[in-house]
């Protein structure tokens, strides 16, 4: 049967002009063939829509009004667009300048901490001077005259000095993929000396699957990209927020870490690390008193 014949058949069925024998055969086919049933349903709905005269009249009028509105909107947008052409060009240029400045600046920031460290290690070599040679903040590290030795310029660092970069990370959000809530971080002294009981709990909401997190403990030193500890994080699925739409649905997980670590006194930073993207998305801090 060609498509044309099929359509004729469906139309005859819908208008009730199929003869007895044909009707019985068609109805039998309808029961067993869902594809045919779907096709017939489409024809039925199409007819219901287009044979409804007042509906057709209303939609024609409505469409012409709506199209006129859209067209007038587009015209005014286009007029604005051409008027704003120069403004847009100027904006792009400005943004470009800002971007360049920013790239330049962040490159400088990366270079700064590494250079003094390498320079100082070789001639002096002791743990103390190495630490004190690291600039603590921009304002205190100004090599104003080349004659002044670096030792005098750099202030003495303490284990409690805040790390500007990590302080900034604390205020940053959790990024696009994760939503953290009910986060608690506790670090009381442990039972044995020099130990701290770290306990971290949080709730994360995300659409990503197969999560893998670590909790990193970092010292306050600006150069310490290597964590002192990498603690495992237990992840428990709480519930699906929208159970019907499985794809891209957000799920809630409970994150928890309870572990005892050895730490000296000082200020420490705790960062939640996504092992998959290798990025941090939450930062907190605690200090260990004497």
């Amino acid at each position, binding site marked *: 049967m060609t*498509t044309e014949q099929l*359509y004729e058949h469906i139309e005859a069925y819908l208008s009730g002009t199929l003869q007895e024998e044909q009707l019985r055969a068609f109805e039998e086919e309808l029961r067993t063939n869902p594809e045919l049933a779907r096709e017939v349903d489409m024809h039925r709905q*199409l007819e219901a829509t287009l*044979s409804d005269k007042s509906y057709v009249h209303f939609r024609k009028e*409505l469409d012409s*009004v709506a199209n006129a509105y859209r067209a007038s909107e587009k015209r005014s947008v286009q007029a604005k667009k051409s008027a704003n052409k120069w403004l847009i060009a100027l904006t792009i240029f400005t943004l470009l300048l800002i971007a360049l400045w920013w790239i330049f600046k962040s490159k400088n920031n990366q270079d700064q901490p590494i250079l003094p460290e390498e320079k100082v290690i070789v001639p002096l070599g002791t743990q103390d001077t190495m630490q004190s040679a690291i600039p603590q903040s921009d304002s205190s590290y100004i090599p104003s005259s080349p004659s002044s030795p670096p030792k005098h310029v750099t202030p003495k660092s303490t284990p409690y000095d805040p790390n500007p970069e990590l302080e900034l990370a604390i205020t940053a959000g959790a990024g696009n993929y994760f939503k953290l809530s009910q986060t608690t971080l506790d670090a009381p002294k442990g039972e044995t000396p020099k130990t701290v009981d770290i306990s971290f709990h949080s709730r994360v909401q995300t659409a990503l699957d197969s999560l893998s997190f670590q909790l990193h403990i970092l010292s306050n030193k600006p150069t310490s990209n290597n964590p002192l500890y990498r603690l495992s994080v237990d992840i428990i699925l709480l519930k699906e927020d929208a159970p019907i739409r499985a794809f891209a649905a957000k799920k809630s997980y409970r994150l928890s870490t309870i572990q005892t670590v050895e730490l000296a006194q000082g200020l420490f930073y705790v960062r939640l690390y996504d092992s998959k993207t290798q990025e941090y998305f939450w930062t907190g801090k605690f200090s260990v008193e004497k």
Partner: protein
Amino acid sequence: MTDQDQHYLLAIRSGDRAGLKQIYTDFLPRITSLITRNGGSKDDAYDVFQDAMVVLFEKCRTDSFTLSSSFYTLLYGICRNLWGNRLQKRSRSEVTLEDDYKFNQTEDLSKIIQEEEKRSIFWNAFSKLGEDCQKLMLLFFDKTSMDEIARIMNYASEGYAKKRKFQCKEHLLQIIKADATFQDYQTY
């Protein structure tokens, strides 16, 4: 219900072009701001507004219909509901409309909305056809006989009218089948 509200309803019931224009001028800006405040674009707002008008039309057709609140409240409620449905379908969207008991729909209205969303697919496909096919389809569904159609459309023969009718209908059904929203409705 004010006289003005009565006017709006009349325009919708009769499909009066000037009256429909008036409704657009009076309410479209407010609805646009509702949609854009809730994660939609201006285009979304136009779509929702247009569909809301059709829902209102269907609602006006039922004999028992009277306005229990102002026209704007009803229109606003319908737009809210339509937009809420659409947001839900865009599963990636993080925007949700907060619950607002004032605009919760009656059983009857949400049923109309649901049916209208489905019916719109058929109408939108129809409006994509060429002028010739549109005219032919309307004549056909109006139960005009094939030789009559051939005469009105200036076709050479009844046979050709039949052939054209098939081509137009086939084209129309192809557009509908390709519609993503229509595929959503194919639940069985």
